[in-house]
């Protein structure tokens, strides 16, 4: 569930296909996100999952899997 919602948000913000948003994908290296894209994704996740993600925590979210784990731990 979390992964699916995450895939939709990332696909929307980055203009990629949901099929590219795999667990091992790195936001920057594989999905081509720059730091402004990452803010958009983070804000999307905050809204969707009702959590607040600090700037420090954003640094630790490099891959899709990192994001899934982060969100799961806070649901």
């Amino acid at each position, binding site marked *: 569930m979390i992964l699916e919602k995450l895939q939709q948000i990332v696909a929307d913000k980055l203009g990629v296909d949901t099929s590219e948003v795999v667990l091992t994908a790195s936001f920057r290296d594989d999905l081509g996100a720059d730091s*402004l894209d990452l*803010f958009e994704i983070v804000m999307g996740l905050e809204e969707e999952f009702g959590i607040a993600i600090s700037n420090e925590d954003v640094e630790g979210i490099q891959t899709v899997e990192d994001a899934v784990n982060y969100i799961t731990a806070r649901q």
Partner: protein
Amino acid sequence: MDGVKIIGVGKAVPKKTLTNEEIATFVETSNQWIKERTGIEERRIAIEETTTSLAVSAAKEAIDEAKIEAETIELVIVATASPDSVMPNTACLVADALGIKNATCFDLSAACSGFLYASEVACSMMRVGRYKRALVIGAETLSKVVDWEDRGTCILFADGAGATLYEGTNENKVLAFKTQSDGSGAKYLELSASYKANRFHQEEPQHPFIVMNGQEVYKFAVTKVPQNIKALLEETPYDVQDIDWFILHQANERIITSVAKKLGVAEEKFFKNIQHYGNTSAASIPIALKEAQNKLKKGDKVLLAGFGAGLTWGSMLFIVS
């Protein structure tokens, strides 16, 4: 007469064009990076021009378009964060240059929201009945307050001026304003005043350049601007889909894209000229308004929205007359 309408718009930009490629010769950056991150390709930099001279030129164009005598203008407000002098204010210098002798003249400091704030102030003063014609100018020479070794800011901020002439009317065309602020975000975008010390108080000279936390400013803009626009429209009979043109402060193309998306409005309705002028703070909206003029039709609903240091932000809805 408690209505207001726009009767003239003008703009003035410096002669020198500074391209991304030229910046990349003295700062570690690249044309591609700047274009992708901001949408900017080139900007204008004042060499002989000053904030005042640009303000005067922009005002002249607005006055010429309105076909009125400058001396009938009773109110001059210049929104700027880079005035040539604290005293006299820019507005007095502009009035003097244009032969405006019977006006109330002052500068207004609200960073990139300056034009919106100054417009609200001018229109409010006019609606009370005291002023029939008001000149509102946004004018900046940010190139003189930017750290040219800071690639985070020197690629963004540039110079120019835009002017709008407002006139009292029985058929109101300026429908609504919504200006807001949040001082808790002050530290995200700063420009210190000049070195402050006296015989009894010594202070470390402040870095007299723009200092910006780009991340926080971006997050603020893409969150607050759509909220503000929706709140503004709630006070009017219209919703976002009714608006013909959105003219946002030209800070970063990515912000414009994000705001359009959050509002669910086609990006084509958002006028952009940031590629040519960069971020000219208070001047950006009136410059864009002037350049959008040939696309505007009588009766079009136009929404202007600014956001910037303070933090300040605001929007205005008017109908093209």
